[in-house]
Every structure is written in C-alpha cells, then in structure tokens.
C-alpha cells in the first residue's frame, strides 16, 4: 500500500468496485479497500436484478447466475394473484445472482483495470485539511495507515460512516429503512423460473416477503419490514419470516441466514463535499419501493469513476465541481427514478389490507404481457381513486414520456 493515490474507494460492494474499475480504466491510480476479509461475504441481499440493466454494466457470466426468471407473481393479503411477465415487472426480476461470486468478480475487474485492492482494510476516519477531504486513516491487521488521495469515494454501504465523518448526515430514520431477514432454503424443489412477492400488513408491515429461486431447487425466502412498523415490543423481521416459513415451507432446510437493512429514504440532500463523493447504499441510492440497490449502486459507481477523472484532470475537486460532474448527472438519471419510487412507497405504506386486496383484484385480469400504461391506469382508476390521486405525479411524468416517445 502506498501513501498516496489519485482515488481512494472505501468499500468493495458493487458501487465501489465499479467506481474503482471506471477510474482505473481512465488511467487514474486507484486504491480500493474492503474491511471484510472476504469480498461479498456475508451476503446481505436477495440477489435479484433486471437482465437488461445488468447487461449495461457487465458481460453476463454464468458463474454468478443462479436463476433466470421470466415472470413474477404478486400475492395480495387475501391470496389474489397478479401475474407479471418479464418485460414489465420492473427492475427487480431477471436474474438471481450469487453475490459472493458476483461481488468478487467485480472487484477482480477493478484489479484487472489496474486498481490496487486491499481486503481486511477498514477506514476508521478521514484526513480533512482546509475544509477538504484529503484521504483516510485505514486499519489493516491491527496497524494504522494514513493514505492520501486526490478524491475519496465513500462506497461503504448501509452502515456508511464516510459521509458522516465529512459532515454529511446520512443517518436514516426507522421509517427510512427496511429491516430484513432471509433464509436460503433447500429441499423444497422450488420452481426456478418465477419469483413471488407477498404483501400485507399482517405478514410484512410496510414491506413484503419475497421468494427468489437460487438454482437447484433452492430459494432465497426473505422479508423486509419498515423500520417504523417493527421494534422492541413488536415482532421482528425474523419473527415474521419464521411465521411465514411455518405456513409455507414447514419442512424446508435453512442452509444460510441473512440479515440486513435497506435504505428506502429516497434521495438525500447531499452526496458530495470537497474531495468526496458518496455512492450506492452509502448515498442512500437504493430504490424506496423495491429495496433494490445493486444496479443503482453500479450506475452511481460508474458516474463517480468518470466524475473523479474529470475533476482530477481539471485539477478541481471542490464541491462545486463535484456537483457539476457527479451530483447533477446522478440526480437527473437514477435520482429521478428514486424520487418517483418514493412517491409510490409513501402511498403504499399507508394502504390497508382491504385496499391492497381491491387493488390486486382489479389488476388480476389485466393482460400484463401486453400491458400499456393506459390499461394499468384504467385498472387502477377503477380500483382506487384515492390511490390515483396520491400517485398523480407519476402519471404526469408517464404522460410526458408518452408524448416524448411519440415525437
């Protein structure tokens, strides 16, 4: 490890590895550090990603694909089933990854592009001089190192400290975090071509239960519960999950346990400061409605890698510059989608089980393979006028899209 780099990336999840790879490919001298001794392990993810989006970032490698999905089923509290074919089911269906292998492959790609990678190396604080981030203090095998860098990229996930050290308060309120538990189950011979979602205030308040096939008859069965709807005197995610397991898979073998938190706050106010950018879960860029964050993290990583190059080439890593080369590009692209999802989330978490049932019932017969936005609008309108009102911003936006595409 040297004592100076162009770019120091903290955290080797999808966000950090893509940022490091992008910056290294541009010829910058990059150090990527990861506090765990094994990248990608333990997993904190259900591992579902959209095929199309993933292909934008990496070539598909079957070593880290566990299942290839072509449909998803959503079950309302009363059991009403909505079936969605691949094209329109949104960002979270497509492949189910093996993140232990996937995350490592991304870090290897960063290394192959020229970045130095250090595991079991934890950032414990930032070096800040004249109001600008100039590097970080690292700990590796009990020894402390000061490493300076032209730009620091905080990709340290849900537990991010990097932003806070620089004065950006990224702490989440309970209502802004889905708290999760998941089992990898075997011995149930689960269908490997579709995933399932179960919604309802009884089974997963403010969140949902998912079943994602994981290859060879196995599946990730997990739950996210909104932080504000669980707590000390209420059931925990793990309690809800156990209840669901008892009913649905009483004989399943649990071969892995996963816990975690997903930010569902929507865009936060600030994700950069002088000499520093935050990306991925550290910047709270996961999707507020689905909790999906892998692809957003990769998008942000790419933008930040490019931004680092622009800023360093220009000899200007000030907040002003980073606002231009990083903040603005991410907010107008993935930030926009996040904002839209936040509107849906705020509406969704207040729906009663009856609302959810009636909504599902009205969507039941919509031909989702050929669904147009108008079909969906019509169905929604029949089901719940209040909902339509709450979501009006989305439709305004969608209408704009339609107009744009026609021109």
């Amino acid at each position: 490890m040297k004592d100076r780099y162009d770019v120091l990336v903290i955290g080797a999840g999808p966000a950090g590895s893509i940022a490091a790879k992008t910056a290294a490919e541009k010829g910058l001298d990059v150090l990527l550090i990861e506090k765990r001794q094994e990248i990608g392990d333990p997993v904190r993810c259900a591992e579902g990603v959209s095929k199309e989006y993933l292909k934008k970032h990496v070539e598909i490698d079957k070593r880290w694909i566990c299942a290839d999905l072509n449909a998803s089923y959503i079950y309302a509290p009363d059991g009403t089933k909505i079936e969605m074919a691949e094209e329109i089911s949104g960002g979270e269906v497509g492949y189910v990854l093996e993140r232990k292998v996937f995350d490592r492959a991304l870090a290897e790609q960063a290394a192959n592009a020229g970045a130095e990678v250090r595991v079991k190396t934890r950032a414990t604080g930032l070096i800040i001089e004249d109001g600008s981030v100039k590097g970080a203090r690292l700990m590796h095998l009990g020894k402390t190192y000061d490493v300076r860098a032209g730009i620091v990229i905080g990709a340290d996930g849900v537990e991010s400290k990097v932003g806070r050290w620089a004065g950006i308060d990224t702490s989440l309120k309970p209502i802004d975090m889905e708290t999760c538990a998941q089992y990898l189950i075997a011995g149930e011979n689960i269908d490997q071509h579709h995933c399932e979602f179960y919604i309802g205030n009884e089974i997963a308040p403010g969140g949902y239960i998912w079943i994602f096939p994981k290859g060879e008859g196995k599946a990730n069965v997990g739950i996210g519960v909104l932080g504000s709807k669980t707590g000390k005197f209420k059931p925990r995610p793990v309690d809800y999950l156990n209840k669901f397991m008892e009913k649905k898979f009483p004989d399943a073998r649990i071969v892995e346990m996963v816990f975690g938190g997903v930010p569902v706050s929507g865009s936060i106010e600030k994700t950069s400061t002088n000499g520093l950018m935050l990306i991925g879960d550290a910047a709270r860029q996961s999707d507020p409605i689905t909790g999906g964050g892998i692809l957003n993290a990769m998008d942000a990583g790419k933008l930040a890698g490019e931004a680092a190059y622009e800023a360093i080439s220009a000899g200007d890593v000030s907040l002003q510059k980073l606002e231009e080369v990083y903040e603005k590009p991410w907010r107008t692209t993935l930030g926009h989608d996040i904002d839209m999802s936040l509107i849906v989330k705020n509406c969704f978490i207040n729906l009663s089980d009856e609302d959810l049932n009636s909504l599902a019932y009205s969507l039941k017969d919509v031909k989702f393979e050929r669904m147009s936005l108008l079909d969906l609008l019509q169905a929604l309108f029949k089901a719940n006028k209040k909902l339509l009102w709450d979501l009006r911003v989305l439709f305004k936006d969608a209408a704009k899209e339609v107009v744009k595409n026609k021109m």
Partner: protein
Amino acid sequence: MSIKINRYKCGYCGACVGVCPKGAIELVETWVEVDESTCVACGICDRICPVGAIEVMK
C-alpha cells in the same frame, strides 16, 4: 444508561449502524462496537435490529 449487544445473536448486518443518529455504532467485521460516550440511549438501533440483538436501557 447503557446499551448491550448480544454478539451471540447479532447477524452483523450493519442496520443499526445506519440508523444511529449519533454515529455511535460501528460494524467492525463480524462484531459491533458501541462508543458509550456518544450513545444517547435513544433506542433506535434496538428498534431496527432484525433479530433483536440490542438492548438499550435508559
């Protein structure tokens, strides 16, 4: 005022770290450390923990 983390129950997921308003918690590798001098015993970490490994006493 004190906070106890049951390390035999903790799944080292980092959710508590993300919600602590004081930045008092840190996930080191497979364990969680709390800086008792900055912790204000607000109990948010206890509320968010998916397994209930944290106990905050006011």
